[in-house]
Each structure stands twice: as C-alpha cells, then as structure tokens.
C-alpha cells in the first residue's frame, strides 16, 4: 500500500468518525505540518497551535475530501489557507512583526559560542527572508524546497497553473537572493 493509499484509507475511516484513524493521520503528518507552518511564521509555539487547527479542520471537513485527490495536496491547501489567515489576523491587530525571531543568547559552555551565534544569525535571516515573501511565493518556496512537492502539486495547493508556480518561484528566488546576500 502506497502512502497515498494509506492516507485515503485513514481518511475514509476518519469520515466515519474513527478517532484512532485520525490519531494515525496526525502522527503521519504532524512533522511536516508543524515544520511548514514554522517556516512560514517563525514562531514554534504558534506553529503548533496552528498545526492543531489544521488537523481539526481536516477532521471536520473529512466529508468534503475526495479520494481522487492526493491527501497531502488537500492537507497543504488547508495549511496554506491557515497561514494566510494568520497573517491577515496579525495585520488587523497590528501584532508583533512576523519577522521577529527570538534572540538566542550564546551558550558560553558551548564548544564555540561564536559559531553558535553565527548559526543563530543564519537561521534568523533565512527565517526572516522567507517570512517576508508574499503568501503564495512563501508557500511555493517552502513546499518546493522543504517538502519536495512537484510543480503540479504546488499548483494544486495554490489553485493556480504550473507556469504561475514557476513565476512565483522565480520571483521568490530573486527576493531571497537579495535578502540573503552575503550569506552565499
């Protein structure tokens, strides 16, 4: 049984209210969902909260899932919409900047505190650069670079064409190269 078949079978059982199947579905995909959201918003705690909302949405919308579509495509569509809604919510409430990341003090007991500082700065700059991208570019980059989705899968998630995905990635790459200049 392929991964897609396993997901489809689990969703069939979730539609019938099987919470055991729902737990299995969470455990199969929690890592990528949390990681994708974290890369988009930069806050680990918020990422878990939003990831829970994604899975709850999956459970409540199980009746609308069509097995003809790949489950992960449907799941990432919900992830993308959840992230986009979170950005809008923050913009409305003028919350803390989404570019902000927690500062991590160097551990003086570490073998090389200077290296740790440099590594932290690298992580922060990459996170900030990704977070500053427009919603569709950000999702396209994350799904392409970190989750290995193909262009047509990304197009299905974003509800656009493959040429549009290529255009999004092209513009995203240009922005990222500009923002991360000096780190290459």
């Amino acid at each position: 049984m392929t991964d897609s078949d396993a997901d489809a079978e689990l969703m069939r059982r979730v539609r019938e209210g099987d919470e055991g199947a729902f737990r299995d579905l969470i455990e199969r995909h929690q890592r990528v969902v949390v990681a994708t959201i974290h890369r988009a918003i930069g806050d680990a705690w918020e990422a878990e909260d939003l990831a829970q909302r994604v899975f709850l949405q999956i459970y409540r919308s199980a009746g609308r899932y069509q097995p003809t579509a790949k489950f992960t495509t449907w799941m990432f569509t919900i992830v993308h919409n959840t992230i986009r809604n979170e950005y809008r919510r923050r913009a409305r409430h003028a919350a803390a900047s989404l570019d902000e990341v927690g500062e991590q003090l160097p551990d003086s007991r570490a073998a090389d505190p200077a290296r740790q500082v440099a590594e932290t700065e690298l992580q922060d700059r990459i996170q900030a650069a990704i977070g500053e991208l427009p919603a569709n570019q950000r999702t396209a980059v994350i799904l392409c670079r970190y989750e290995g989705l193909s262009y047509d899968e990304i197009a299905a998630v974003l509800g656009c064409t493959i040429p549009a995905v290529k255009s999004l990635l092209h513009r995203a790459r240009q922005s990222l190269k500009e923002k991360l200049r000096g780190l290459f």
Partner: protein
Amino acid sequence: MTQPTQRPDDFDPDLWDLLGRHRATEPSVGFADRTLRRLHEPPPRRWVVWRWALAGGVAAVVVAGVVWHQQAEGNRRAAFYAATQQADYLDDFDVIESLHLVQGENHL
C-alpha cells in the same frame, strides 16, 4: 513525507543549499494527544457568534411583527367587508319587506 527534495533545474544551487540549512521545529511530545483533546473542547465563545444570533433574533421578531400586522389588517378589512355586506343585506330585507307590505303579504 521525509524523502530528500530534489533541486529543480532552474533553482540556483547556492540558494538551494543555503535554504537547506534552515532548521524547522519538531512537534513537541504529545502533540497528537493534545490535538485529540482539543477536538472535544467546546468552541470558544466569540462575540461575532452572539452578534449574529442577536441579529437573527431581531430579524425574526421584525418579520413576525410584519406578518402579524398584515394578518390583523386583513382580518380588520374582512370584518369591515362582512359588516358592509350585512348592512346591504339588511337593506335588501327592508326593501323586500316593504314590497310585501305594499302587496299585503308577510313572508318573513
């Protein structure tokens, strides 16, 4: 989904490698349990829900009032019509009685 990602041909190798150094957080222990618990929690009360419920209630009262008024108006008109019809009927009776009296008959 943990398979290594393959760089598309049009993706700059240096940027690809740099982005690959970014580490994302892992879900904390018990994530699935907490999610399932949240599934059974009552939804948070939000003012927007109560606002829509209040608006719906007001709309229902207004509609009921309009319907009641229209029915009352209709009943009033029906009663008036019936009253006028009866008056005409009684007028007809008076005419018929008069005719009978003229003709020396009393059929009522």
